[in-house]
């Protein structure tokens, strides 16, 4: 959590890039205190805005920041995936992640966040925006009226994370079959392939039929 405390008040360790600073200043002018926090990710500014200002942030980015290009809209589930029991899907091979819930750059209020990236084709800059969505009722205003390309991204985000987008023209499944239940990119959704057949892990060698000592358990040894 040390990272979070460091960023309260919008101070980051590395000095801000001049372009990043300009972008953030313009965003503050338009959005005011709807901007909760900011950070810098290797030259790309990240701002976290209040959920009610999510669509307004897109409008400001498109008009005041000249970000005419929508790169992506997606979600993050910050809750660590369960490592044990049925929920982990009998998986022992995946990299071990920290078990406490920590948040990334610019922080988060809870488990689910939306993250989007927009860019300017004329000024060649870009900005990543985040907003917190409620865990019990994850929903946000759709970006489709501002960026029509958000339609598919939001459909994907809806089926993968279960985040509803108000004002979206047709929120239906994109990749998954329409009768699919659950939200696969949520951390508590196990990797189904591993549930069906557990990953062998490090020992991935079956003994050959003629191996000495290897086939003692199958009861067919002739000795």
């Amino acid at each position, binding site marked *: 959590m040390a990272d979070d405390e460091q960023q309260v008040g919008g101070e980051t360790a590395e000095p801000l890039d001049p372009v990043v600073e300009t972008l953030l200043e313009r965003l503050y002018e338009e959005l005011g205190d709807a901007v909760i926090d900011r950070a810098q*990710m290797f030259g790309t500014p990240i701002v976290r805005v209040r959920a009610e200002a999510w669509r307004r942030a897109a409008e400001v980015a498109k008009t005041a920041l000249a970000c005419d*290009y929508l790169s992506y809209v997606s979600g993050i589930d910050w809750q660590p995936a369960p490592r044990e029991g049925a929920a982990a899907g009998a998986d022992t091979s*995946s*990299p071990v992640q*920290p078990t406490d819930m*920590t948040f990334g*750059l610019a922080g988060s209020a809870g488990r689910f966040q939306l993250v989007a990236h927009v860019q300017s*084709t004329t000024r060649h800059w870009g900005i990543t925006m985040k907003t917190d969505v409620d865990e019990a009722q994850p929903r946000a205003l759709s970006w489709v009226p501002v960026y029509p390309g958000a339609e598919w991204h939001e459909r994907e985000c809806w089926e993968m994370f279960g985040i509803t987008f108000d004002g979206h023209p047709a929120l239906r499944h994109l990749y998954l079959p329409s009768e699919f239940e659950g939200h696969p990119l949520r951390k508590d959704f196990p990797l189904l392939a591993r549930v069906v057949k557990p990953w062998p892990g490090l020992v991935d060698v079956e003994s050959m039929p003629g191996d000495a000592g290897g086939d003692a358990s199958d009861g067919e040894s002739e000795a």
Partner: protein
Amino acid sequence: MSSTDTPGLPRFDVEPGALRHLAEAQMNVELDTGDMILNLGPQHPATHGTLRLVVRLDGERVIAADPVVGYMHRGYEKLTEFRTYPQITTLVNRIDWLSSFANEVPFVHAAELLMGVEAPPRARWIRTILTELSRIATFYLFLGEMGLQVGALTPAFWGFRDREHVLNLIEAATGGRFHPNFNRIGGLKDDLPRGWAAETRRAMQAILDGCDDFESILVGNEIFEARTRGIGIIPSDVGASYGVSGSNLRASGVDWDLRRDGRPYLAYPEIEFAVCTHTDGDAFARYWVRLQETRESARMVLRLLDGLPAGPIMAKVPRVIKVPEGEAWVETENPLGQMGYYVVSKGATGPFRVKIRSASFSNVSILPWLLRGAYVPDVVAILASLYFILGDIDR
């Protein structure tokens, strides 16, 4: 009161006036032109895989089009959470399978940024050369394929034939024709084999000649121009708001190339190259832009070979790759457009979350807008000119 008798036909007693009335009524009835639903795909040759396009037709004209994707969805974003960083390069290889090497670069770069590791200059230059070779391989298939979709068979054979030069080079350097898996965090698996540079120079000459052939047979060809000019026009602002990128957006007059305008990566800041744009935004413009970019890539490879620095190909990295906590967004100009990875790390051997931004996904999401009002034969030409790879849509 009776009509004339015809042998063999039943006799009707109808008033003559009524009959004429009936005939006139028949004339005034409009032909039934109810909407027709047509399924293109999931197995249509123009779709490079399994894209299904449900189009509603009024006669020959498209009223509405709805792409149905997901037939090849493999859930890579979920799978990355169960893999270590070095294992993920194998996965991302298979997103856009025609330019696999170019898919690896931004992911490996994101991990390198987070670890504070920089690949040595020679590794960066070789990566650039292989990325440009992937671009040539990808575009060559398009240059031939596009002709095929509008009825010219010869260019397709040329495209497949000459692409072999490039695939052989990639195979010679990396060991894999389609899935090199050659990038390592901090550098490359191997150095280039002996004699590779000379062979590449010869092949690039063949590629440049091949581009002239494509130009002479298609550009200026009456049939090709009639089938591609003025159809599928993407205005620059609409294209950008849909996230259309790469050559598709440059064909709409947007002078934006991440190799030149993005955060500097690989050896692009150190070499000269031209960025081609076209103002028309139609299917022809997209063909023309890719043709010029293929030439430019071949010239870039020659330039890169001239300036290839000596030195190591791997930076010092720990044996077990652990990426420090942080987030990184790396975007590159891939053959199909902007490819980006938003990587969230929590200090483990694998990423916590990876958002894969693939080019074809956004390039295809414009189809409902673009196909409205198009004619059925043009649909195939428009699909071919957008040039997408299914693995790049479905991930």
